[in-house]
């Protein structure tokens, strides 16, 4: 699904951000990317969603060498990748509905089909009552859900999330990861970049640790747990709450 072979990256004449990184993420896998601030987590993800090209090395996505892609094919490939940006990148002049519909619109889907899919998805993330709301009128958590809905609306094969838990408390962050876990169970390959080691230690997924531009593959269970984040008890997947809490709705917020 995602293969990096000796990939290095530097911006201009600056230092090496990533140094000869090699990794191979299998289809349907779930990985966390962790590392200190500035370790290169975002840069790694940017190369996965083709925002950056490596200085050297080779990247393959969905079995295709990205360096040989035409602009047209690169655009088609990007449609198979959903991205939850750290700063959400919602368009202020568009409604919730239109923001989420954007990937479908650029891929040329019909308007009536788009509306049906988007309303369904926004209902799933608890924003059915905010279809016409502009991002500025939404809370941070709601904006995040809009960003997630936009990332998954086109049913991507690969979902990349850059610090999705950065702006929410641990309870919402944990539910967010459960949501990603659900998507992963449906076949989506997930890569989540975060600095919240305590949170990801509750999930049993491999971890890509970035240290000074190099990667080390670890297992989540080897991470140190913090006292305020107890290890996750075995969970019955059938009853797990993957809905995201809606502000002002205590029941939903659970």
């Amino acid at each position, binding site marked *: 699904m995602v293969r990096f072979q000796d990939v290095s990256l530097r911006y201009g004449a600056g230092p090496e951000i990533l140094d000869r990184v090699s990794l191979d993420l299998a289809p349907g896998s779930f990985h966390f990317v962790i590392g200190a601030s500035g370790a290169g987590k975002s840069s790694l993800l940017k190369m996965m*969603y*083709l*925002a*950056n*090209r490596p200085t050297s090395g080779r990247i393959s996505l969905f079995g295709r060498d990205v360096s040989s892609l035409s*602009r*047209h094919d690169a*655009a*088609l*490939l*990007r*449609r198979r990748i959903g*991205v939850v940006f750290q700063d959400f*990148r919602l*368009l202020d*002049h*568009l409604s919730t*509905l*239109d923001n989420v*519909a*954007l*990937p479908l*619109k*650029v*891929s040329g889907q019909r*308007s009536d089909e*788009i*509306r049906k899919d988007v309303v369904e998805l926004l209902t799933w993330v608890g924003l059915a009552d905010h279809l016409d709301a502009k991002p500025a009128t939404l809370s941070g958590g709601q904006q995040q859900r809009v960003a997630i809905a*936009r990332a998954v609306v*086109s049913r991507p094969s690969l979902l990349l999330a850059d610090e999705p838990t950065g702006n929410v408390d641990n309870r919402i962050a944990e539910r967010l990861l459960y949501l990603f876990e659900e998507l992963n169970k449906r076949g989506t390959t997930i890569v989540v970049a975060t600095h919240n080691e305590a949170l990801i230690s509750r999930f049993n997924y491999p971890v890509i640790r970035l240290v000074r531009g190099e990667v080390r593959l670890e297992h989540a269970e080897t991470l140190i747990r913090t006292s305020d984040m107890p290890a996750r008890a075995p969970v019955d997947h059938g009853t797990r709450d993957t809905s995201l809490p809606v502000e002002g709705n205590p029941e939903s917020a659970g």
Partner: protein
Amino acid sequence: MLLRKSVVPLNSDATGRFLPWLVAVMVYLAALALVSAMAMSKIVTRWDHGLSGQITVQLPVSESDLTEAEITNRREEVLTLLQQSPGVLSANHIGREETAALLEPWLGQTSGLSELPLPDLIAVEIDQLDPPSTASLTARLIEIVPGATIDDHQRWLGNLLNLARSIEIVAALVVLLVGLSAVIMVVFVTRMGLAVHYQIVELLHLIGAQDGYIAREFQTHSLKLGFFGGLVGVALAALTIFGITRLLGQADTALLPALSLRPLEWVILGALPFASALVAMVTARLTVLRTLSRIP
């Protein structure tokens, strides 16, 4: 819903607000330049058609004591010579009253014209395919009437043609410069738009929009602005032409050309807004595609 709305909110930009008015000025200048060229071309064509195939023979009226009968005799002799010359289709004497009428636009209606020593003029129609030699004809005329001259109008017409061509070249240059300026303005405005909305453009790019999709956002906007500006410019130009036509009509003089446009010329003027819209659209598209090509 989204399909009715532009993803890139260019309409709310201050950067594009002045573009239609600048396009209007450009189209106005281009329209006037085109009309000037078209009017000049028509005048020259009229003169050219009027004067080609014709020469004028001037027989000087000297202060000597030639009687009216002698003058008539030598004129008849010249007419006979001309009519028998190969390449001459016809030769007709222009009467004194007719000659005086030719001078009226310059000198006005005055009884003093009859006192002037006007030359005897003979209008000669020649075969354009096989014209007579002006030099040999002049030599034979001089034998009959010393001082006789032939005016084939070529020097005068040549100067006018040069002037007309110069005006046409200047008009073409003005249109070219105006077009170039419009292109530069659209490039500038499009780049400003791209800079202002870079986040949106980048987002569209990252979620899989083709370059053409993003370019359409900008080119459609430019098309509208270019068309609106073109309409305003042509409307102003039409008003100006109408005003000048009225002024020329009131002047009532043969020295000034009539400024009337044929239907085809009005169609050309009417096409200017479409041309400005097309230029704006294509320029915006190419600018966006060029900028996007720098994004990996």
